[in-house]
């Protein structure tokens, strides 16, 4: 049992008003020294069977064609081991 995490972020050049709204709120809340905030999406995919290269390639395709819109978004794929006991 493994978990694959896909992080989707707006490309750096794309305006992110939600991130900016968070960033503008920070000084008001007493958090100084944070110059930029960008908001993204995290997808946790629970994968049946082994996460081999073929499985990762399929997830890469899935991320590229569906989870992210590559016109505006970048994405990363990484594997996260899940301990069986925790559920």
């Amino acid at each position, binding site marked *: 049992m493994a978990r694959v995490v896909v992080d989707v972020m707006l490309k750096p050049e794309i305006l992110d008003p939600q991130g900016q709204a968070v960033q503008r709120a920070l000084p008001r809340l007493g958090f100084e020294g944070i110059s930029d905030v960008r908001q993204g999406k995290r997808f946790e995919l629970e994968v049946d069977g082994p996460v081999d290269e073929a499985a990762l390639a399929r997830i890469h395709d899935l991320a590229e064609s569906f989870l992210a*819109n590559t016109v505006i978004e970048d994405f990363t794929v990484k594997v996260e081991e899940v301990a069986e006991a925790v559920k």
Partner: protein
Amino acid sequence: MTARIGVVTFPGSLDDRDTQRAIRLAGAEPVALWHKDKDLHQVDAVVLCGGFSYGDYLRAGAIARFSPVMEPLIEQAKAGLPVLGICNGFQILTEAHLLPGAMLGNDHLHFICRDQKLRVENADTAWTTDYTAGQEIHIPLKNMDGRYVADEYTLDKLEAEGRVAFRYLGLNPNGSLRDIAGISNEAGNVVGLMPHPEHAVEPLIGSGRTDGLPFFTSILKKLVNA
């Protein structure tokens, strides 16, 4: 003989009945298409209407874009089938890469509903011949994710090829780049815009203007004269 214009209903589509009414008022025959349809029932043109298909979850239009009906639609649109995407329909067309660019959340982060002033930039597309280039019209606008973005190269190309079909006037309601409200593909058969022409087809109702009717009379003339 009149033209048969399909209107696709996805789960979460909202303006399907309104769009059918607009088509009827223009004198054409509306045909209800279901998102699971595997063919387009020989319609002469298709409108992807407004709404929140699949709740706009993931991204606006991103899930609907993979509905069964989209397969024949994409294929036939590339072969010249006239397709109009309104609001969510425009978002679906960009997600399906039938139109370039993408749609993001409004820059002010609020839903916005207003009677929006537009300029018709291109009166030669399949859906705009009953306008004149430069004409100023008012069409209701209502969206959460209406900020049109594309890279500079694409924007320049759109401008150079006259494919910016509509531009916001007076106020840019969502932060769209270069005030773009609607665009077309290269051939001019596929048009997408954020404002809702189907809500401006009857005096008294909605904005009380009929500035949206020419979308539907334009396509009807084209199809009947073809």
